């Protein structure tokens, strides 16, 4: 990998960036309860799903970054807070919002029974906009939503609510957005008690903690009560059959798409791939793909620059992944490291590795697989915790691999390049939320 000359070198920060001066003030418990009352009242006059759908589609379009003042302001604020490049955020949010067309939302609306519930959401702080699928699904069903955002990402849903209200105040009255920190368990309890359904995104320990304080009886931190849906830590990857990288042209085309899947959202969300498995008949196809992916990630970094700064913890974790790979290679193991300038991107070829979780920020592993049993063995460590997989293989190979991925828990199986744009009916996290919404349990 050549040194990048036009990519900013990230600095390292020990402390989190300063709070945006426009950060919202936390509510009181009484305000949370009062907001719940208003939201319930707003669902009193039924609005047919086919009238809600176009409003939601218009709101999604309005907060899309490309050429829309709301979206572009949102990108600027997110970039200021997260130190991500505006280009990266634009591309990431555009991919996230892609599935929310009027047609898609209307089609989904026809499947969802009308509801007048109040659904509480505790949103994650790893990716802006994460949870939008569930919010739109809830709103289109006729329910109201009360959202608690993460402290480090108070912008996306607040902007979405504003845009929605501007387009249709009756539907805008069905969404309320608050922000408070993890330490305010009194507010989380008020949210929990005010809502009919409670949906929590976050790391497994966050889920376990909230579920425990709410009196849940989960198993392994992810168990569900009837009215509780939890989205815990899950991982994603890519599988490319032997023929998908048969020649230089195919290899390059696949690498471009995989580079995009890895890069969007700085690889911080559950849809971002950590490990790419390439069908290999002892002919170095996986190795060659790794080299090609390194080139493409470097090229993409010119269009979508990496963050201007990293936390010390994140930088140290990437450094650790690199040093481990470097010394395993120097020690004689079949491992090769490609390093982008600074810590901009990292590709690690590891011939014998099972699925590895990367530290994010454009750090990805590539390994060969020889056949289905070999692939299954390599995925075994993350069995039950898969979210998305890009899959491209010959038809004969694709079906059994898809079946295995589904058996291992994958909820979004797509072509390379589409990982960050799951459809509205995506059974995120295993589908508990959708089952709540559809009353299948």
């Amino acid at each position, binding site marked *: 990998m050549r040194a990048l000359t036009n990519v900013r070198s990230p600095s390292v920060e020990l402390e989190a960036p300063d709070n945006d001066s426009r950060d919202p003030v936390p509510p009181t418990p009484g305000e949370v309860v009062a907001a719940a009352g208003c939201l319930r009242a707003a669902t009193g006059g039924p609005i047919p799903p086919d009238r809600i759908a176009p409003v939601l589609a218009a709101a999604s379009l309005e907060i899309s970054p490309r050429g829309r003042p709301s979206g572009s302001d949102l990108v600027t604020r997110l970039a200021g807070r997260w130190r991500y490049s505006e280009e990266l955020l634009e591309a990431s949010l555009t991919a996230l919002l892609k599935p929310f067309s009027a047609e898609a939302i209307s089609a989904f609306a026809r499947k969802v029974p009308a509801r007048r519930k109040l659904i509480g959401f505790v949103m994650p702080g790893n990716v802006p906009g994460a949870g939008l699928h569930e919010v739109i699904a809830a709103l289109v069903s006729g329910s109201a939503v009360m959202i608690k955002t993460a402290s480090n990402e108070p912008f996306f849903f607040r902007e979405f609510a504003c845009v929605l209200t501007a387009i249709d105040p009756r539907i805008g009255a069905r969404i309320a957005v608050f922000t408070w920190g993890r330490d305010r368990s009194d507010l989380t309890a008020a949210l929990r008690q005010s809502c009919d359904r409670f949906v929590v995104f976050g790391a497994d320990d966050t889920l376990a903690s909230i579920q425990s304080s709410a009196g849940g009886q989960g198993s392994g931190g992810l168990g569900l009560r009837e009215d509780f849906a939890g989205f815990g830590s899950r991982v994603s990857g890519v599988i490319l059959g032997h023929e998908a990288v048969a020649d230089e042209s195919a290899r390059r085309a696949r690498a471009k798409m995989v580079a995009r899947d890895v890069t969007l959202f700085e690889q911080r969300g559950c849809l971002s791939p950590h490990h790419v498995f390439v069908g290999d008949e002892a002919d170095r196809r996986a190795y060659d793909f790794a080299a090609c992916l390194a080139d493409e990630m470097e090229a993409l970094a010119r269009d979508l620059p990496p963050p201007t700064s990293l936390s*010390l913890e*994140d930088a140290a974790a990437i450094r650790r992944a690199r040093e481990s790979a470097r010394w395993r290679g*120097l*020690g*004689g193991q079949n491992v090769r490291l490609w390093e982008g300038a600074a810590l901009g991107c990292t590709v690690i070829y590891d011939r014998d590795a099972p699925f590895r979780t990367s530290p994010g920020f454009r750090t990805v592993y590539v390994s060969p697989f020889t056949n289905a049993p070999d692939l299954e063995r390599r995925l075994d460590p993350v069995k039950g915790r898969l979210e998305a997989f890009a899959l491209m293989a010959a038809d004969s190979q694709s079906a059994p691999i898809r079946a295995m991925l589904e058996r291992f828990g994958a909820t979004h199986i797509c072509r390379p390049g589409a990982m960050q744009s799951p459809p509205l009916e995506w059974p995120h996290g295993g589908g508990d939320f959708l089952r709540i919404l559809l009353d299948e349990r």
Partner: protein
Amino acid sequence: MPIYDEVLSFIHSPAAEAFEALALAVFLYQFDHVPPYREYCIGRGANPQNVLTVGEIPAVSTLAFKYARMENLEEPPGPVARTFLTSGTTIGKDERGRHLVLRPEIYRASALSHLRRMLFPDRRRLAMLALHPTADRMPESSLSQMITWCIEEFGADTALCAATPRAVQDQAAIEFLSDRAAAREPVCILGTTASIAALFTAMRANRIELRLPAGSRLMDTGGAKGQAIPLSADEVVAEALQTLGLEPSLVINEYGMTEMCSQLYDATAFNSPHSSLAGRRMKLAPPWLRPAALDPVTLAPLEDGRAGVLSFFDLANVGSVSALMTEDFGVVRDGAVGIIGRAAAADPRGCALAIEEFAADQRVSDISPIVR
């Protein structure tokens, strides 16, 4: 004079102005004799011709000791050479780091000289309680070796090792401490933070609080990461006061690792005029160990007081690689080190792991007093 003897001589009579030249000589030696290190340096464009200061010497990740032979491959290990192993991880026992120490007398000189300054500046000989196995019980542990040397050098006639590789023998330890309190005999307790935490837990469970005689002290190492019973540095100090009656300034945390022959210790009023930084205790290195905080992006040394990945140049590592980059991050100010944290996904290290095994296998009854 052979390079090993030069280093030994420096440890016995440190002269700050001689450090840089000796460090460069050690680098030259290691570049010539440790092939994986040479390959790494060449990869980074560094060689003895263009490296002119100690700050320019490429630091090797401590992970390297897991995967490559970071040792002098041109000199066969003599009969006194020792190989120390890291603990590995709970899921990777097969990937243990290995540190070949060709001249253990250099490790001994380094360890004891700095122990004398930081833990025994009053030159007292004390009763000794080891809560980590001594070298006869765990020869592959560099900490075990250091504890054994410490007991030999600074111990009085009474000593007990109340740990095996599988368990802390807390009842024996409590009995030993009770006897020392009754006899008004000051005692020095040596162990990992985890084993010390196990002792505190046992004492609380038995509703025992002791007031150890004045001058008693405690050295713990390893920190709280990856332990069954996490205990922060502040909690160790508070618990030691509560359950043993130890003066906070006599509760001293050690920072060390298998891959490095020198150690750092908390600076307290007992051993140093150095103040803490923003409420955090700072650790002092011996004159033959130079710390630096590196920018994790560029690997360049950072200015004083800025947080980065901690690295060290340890002259006492002359037989392997002296320039080490750890997985810890912290700050260096006026040569003193403040530890802030550890890289995510980093393995629980060395001593910290043993207690997980201890917790699974408590109450082993073989107790063997050390015969001096």
